[in-house]
């Protein structure tokens, strides 16, 4: 097609006019969509323009999931929380390789294509950073995203680590393996071999697509129910050994000083926790029926019950759990409540299949000391509903 100079000028004017009008008035859909032909099909979908859900970066090394904007249990992959220690590497999948060596019969290298040839499994699991409480700040005007944004749930697809360990002839005498990333931190963690034979995956898929760069593209270790740091992303090396390696991440970091004067190390398990995602700051509530809802999760299997209190924790009643309740995955709970307009504090409390009950703040402090705000801090939390309907975090003094 021949494009004349006049066409180009007209086009430019049109763009300029559109730009001006878009800037002058907020974009709104046509009043009657039945009278205007809609947009054509397109190669890549986008969210509705009115939807503004975003991660919330905290510094350059982490960002949280906007739980207040989500429904159900699956976290959209582009809203999955981030935590990294040396930035997000840009890895060419064609040159990617995973080395497995140490106490094995056959040290081997697997390409990404190799990993995808093995029999695969898909499993829905949460992933939570063990520091998912310490960054909330002092304000009561915080969203669920700020209170507990460092947990997300995805369907992960990959090869069971046990399959790869059989392929290389893992020694029965190996008790630990080192998992090491290809990021600028070359992040490394020691993991017990028993986890490999239980449910560990080398994952390359997330919610039906390739894992996002922030989640470890093209392949990561995934340890269901364990603290996120140990599920090493951008995985390039596994070394089998008969003792842990005592890396920086598992000694000077990701260890838990205890009230008895010890420090817990290799504290992988994420204990049960719950979070009311509605109503929560910045919602303003109106009198009448409210469906309180949120998510609960545990690294110890399935959530069996979530209790909700509307009187600050004096009395509790069981919420409805959305089926199917999956092990080591976010579980949506819902609780009907007729709000009369009085000031109220609403709380949730998770119980898992081992009988573990999410602890109060005081119980956490009794076990862990008052400085237990670093890792593995999972107290019952709640939201204060003021008579005017505004909702804020029901902060409890941490002492």
């Amino acid at each position: 097609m021949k494009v004349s100079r006049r066409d180009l000028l007209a086009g430019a004017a049109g763009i300029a006019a559109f730009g001006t009008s878009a800037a002058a008035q907020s974009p709104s859909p046509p009043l009657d969509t039945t009278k205007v032909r809609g947009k054509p099909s397109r190669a890549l979908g986008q969210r509705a323009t009115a939807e503004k859900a975003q991660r919330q970066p905290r510094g350059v090394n982490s960002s949280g999931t906007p739980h207040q904007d989500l429904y159900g249990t699956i976290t959209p992959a582009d809203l999955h929380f981030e935590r990294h220690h040396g930035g997000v590497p840009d890895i060419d999948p064609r040159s990617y390789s995973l080395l497995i060596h140490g106490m094995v019969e056959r040290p081997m290298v697997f390409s990404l294509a190799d990993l995808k040839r093995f029999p695969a499994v898909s499993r829905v699991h949460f992933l939570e950073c063990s520091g998912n409480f310490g960054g909330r700040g002092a304000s009561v005007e915080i969203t669920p995203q700020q209170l507990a944004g460092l947990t997300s749930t995805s369907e992960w697809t990959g090869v069971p680590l046990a399959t790869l360990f059989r392929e290389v002839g893992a020694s029965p005498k190996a008790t630990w393996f080192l998992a090491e990333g290809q990021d600028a931190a070359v992040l490394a963690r020691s993991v017990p071999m028993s986890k490999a034979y239980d449910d560990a995956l080398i994952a390359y898929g997330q919610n039906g697509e390739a894992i996002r760069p922030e989640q470890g593209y093209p392949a990561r270790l995934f340890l269901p129910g364990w603290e996120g740091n140990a599920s090493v992303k951008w995985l390039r090396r596994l070394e089998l050994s008969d003792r842990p390696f005592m890396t920086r991440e598992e000694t000077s970091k990701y260890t838990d000083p205890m009230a008895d004067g010890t420090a817990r190390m290799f504290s992988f398990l994420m204990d049960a926790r719950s979070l009311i995602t509605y109503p929560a700051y910045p919602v303003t509530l109106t009198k009448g029926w409210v469906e309180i809802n949120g998510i609960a999760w545990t690294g110890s299997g399935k959530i069996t019950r979530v209790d909700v209190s509307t009187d600050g924790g004096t009395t509790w009643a069981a919420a409805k759990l959305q089926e199917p309740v999956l092990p080591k995955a976010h579980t949506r709970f819902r609780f009907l409540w007729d709000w009369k307009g009085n000031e109220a504090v609403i709380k949730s409390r998770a119980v898992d299949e081992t009988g573990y009950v999410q602890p109060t703040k005081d119980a956490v402090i009794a076990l862990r000391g008052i400085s237990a705000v670093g890792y593995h801090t999972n107290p019952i939390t709640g939201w204060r509903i003021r008579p005017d309907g505004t909702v804020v975090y029901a902060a409890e003094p941490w002492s």
Partner: protein
Amino acid sequence: MTPRHLVCAAAIAVTLVAGLAAQKPPATFGIGRAATPAEIAAWDIDVGPDGAGLPPGKGTAAEGATIYAARCASCHGKTGKEGPNDVLVGRLPGDAFPFAQDARTPKTIGSYWPYATTVFDYIRRAMPPDAPGTLKDNEVYALVAFLLVQNELAPADAVIDAAALPKVKMPARDHFVPDKRGAPKKGK
């Protein structure tokens, strides 16, 4: 279908089912390739608490002080105590371990880190952030020597090498205990 056809169909069905049932996972799939010793050596950078993996070389605090000033002090402070990033230097009176009750006390190498070998491993793999993994082994040994001396964990003239580093006694070491929660199930 005649009875003979039915018998044939049944026989085929049995064969098919038997054929599928025979497809158990093999002992190995034959996927992937052997790793060469050179490939392993290029990536195998970890240092264990027993000193396994420490390379040849050595360094002293005097050498380390110069490197520290040039490459580390801007983030960790002039003496390792000032920050703004992680405070690396400092001992507590009587080597106390108050961390559960006092979140403000920094977890330094001298007050919290349980293994000296970790200092070498971490600096070599991840520091400094503007050029990670670029320090020579002797430079890493010298930085480790400097940090150990600053933390009064080694005499000022100590030479730190693969033999000396695992022998450094760390004050906090005995406070660390394995987590007893939710031990994973045995292999299946």
